[in-house]
């Protein structure tokens, strides 16, 4: 559920997290290496993410590619979570799991920082969400 912040406050609902920004990016199939860096590049004015919800499915190659792409944008996450090895690849539902896991982190005691939830799609579609504590 997404809710406008003031509306949530008016009904005393404590949010899980706040979405700061998002971006979508597409490329020709197979051209995945630039996807993430291009997607992130457009939101580089935002706070630097500290934590990454990785779109990788357990593949070391994908994980390294993800890290390199983010590194090229000056982003080196302190922590990285990979939901997919536990959930399997949920395709159309995957992005929601990525964002939900990212938002749920703010329920952990003393958890701080900006979360980048990476959502990499078949056919070279890319989506990223930046989250912060609400």
């Amino acid at each position: 559920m997404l809710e406008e912040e003031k509306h949530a406050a008016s009904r005393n609902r404590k949010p899980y997290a706040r979405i700061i920004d998002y971006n979508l990016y597409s490329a020709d199939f197979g051209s995945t290496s630039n996807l993430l860096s291009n997607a992130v590049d457009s939101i580089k004015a935002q706070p630097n993410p500290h934590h990454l919800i990785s779109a990788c499915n357990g593949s070391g190659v994908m994980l390294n590619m993800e890290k390199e792409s983010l590194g090229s944008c000056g982003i080196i996450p302190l922590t990285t979570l990979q939901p997919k090895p536990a959930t399997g690849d949920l395709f159309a539902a995957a992005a929601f799991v990525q964002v939900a896991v990212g938002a749920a982190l703010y329920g952990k005691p003393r958890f701080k920082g900006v979360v980048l939830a990476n959502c990499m799609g078949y056919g070279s579609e890319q989506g990223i969400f930046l989250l912060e504590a609400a």
Partner: protein
Amino acid sequence: MRRVVITGLGVVCPIGKSKEEFWSNLTSGRSGIGPVTLFDASAFPVRIAGEVKHLDLNSIENTFPESAGIRDRKVLLALSAAEQALTDSMLDEEDLKDALLHCGVGLEVFELDYLTHSISTGKRNSLSFSRINCDGLWQTPLDCTAGLIGRKWGFKAGRITNCSACAAGAQVIGEAWQMLCESRAQIALAGATDSMLNPLGLGGFALLKVLSDENDRPAQACRPFDASRKGTVLGEGAAFVVLETLEHAAARNAGIYAEIIGYGSSMDAFSPTDPDSAGAGAVQSMRKALNRANIHPGSVDCVNAHGTGTVKNDIAETVAIKQVLAASAYDIPVHSVKSMTGHLIAASGAVEAAAAMLTISRNCVPPTINLVRPDEQCDLDYVPNTARVFSGDTVLSNSFGFGGQNATLIFRRLL
């Protein structure tokens, strides 16, 4: 918030395979509905439809080599319309690299011709069509259209596919408009396509009892707002428009059809197939669009109605229009494109948006044909049978879909 205008459009539908042919036939009141020729419908209770005649498959394949082997007509119609829109806009391919792409597509994902044959014969791959995909692919992936268009012109700023039935075409234009208003991009290509003209599609809609079965007079079968109307007629088509921020369009001296000033969307949450008889969802959709446009209901100069020709929709829509526009509803023309094209399902909102833009840019309101004796409960000015001069500035276009999904767009002459 940025201002957003339309700088290109392309239409492929039963009354024309180009913008000019479409507009000429639309304003002439020429119906595109006739006997079904795409398959043998002789055993069906409904044997009429709005088909796109003589679709040039070779031309489409020449432009889109990747489409070779694709038999799904809605994909092919979309490719043709998208190419027209981009050519019309005169944008360079380099401009499209950062452009958004929003595609509305039909609900069904299976290649229904293939599935129909397979079910009826029990054989999976034995088809006699000349253009078949023999690898056993039963589905047209929902993002097929967006993928083909996106890869052809290098759209990289995100591709969205929408399948909200008859509201899809209007929703993709509206959602693209919002993203440009919010400076997410400078340019967007948005449009929709559908073709359910196959045995399962036509048969399924006939079972819903929403189609006219007047097979002996196809051109008169779709009669929106007429007291003797018996239902809608299924059609196929596609339309795409190029949206551009006003700044970007002005900087390159682009030709501008109209400005989009409002968009609203709602959900009836009432029935899978019937509209809410009180028109509540439709009212909400129109009011949201008017609020976004920041205009008074009395500022609307014309309504491009959803106008399907079903008994329920036409009454519900009339009720809703009167609720929203109040007394001014009686002073403005309310016309139905579907009276000539039939119901293009997912594509209808996009094709009708194109008609709305042309109404403004060409100063002409198309007619609602076959309107001889209006329903007593439909008492607005539906522009019966003859087009008329349009001297207004603002057109509101409605799309109310199966499942109760509603969308409204408001266009205005660039001031």
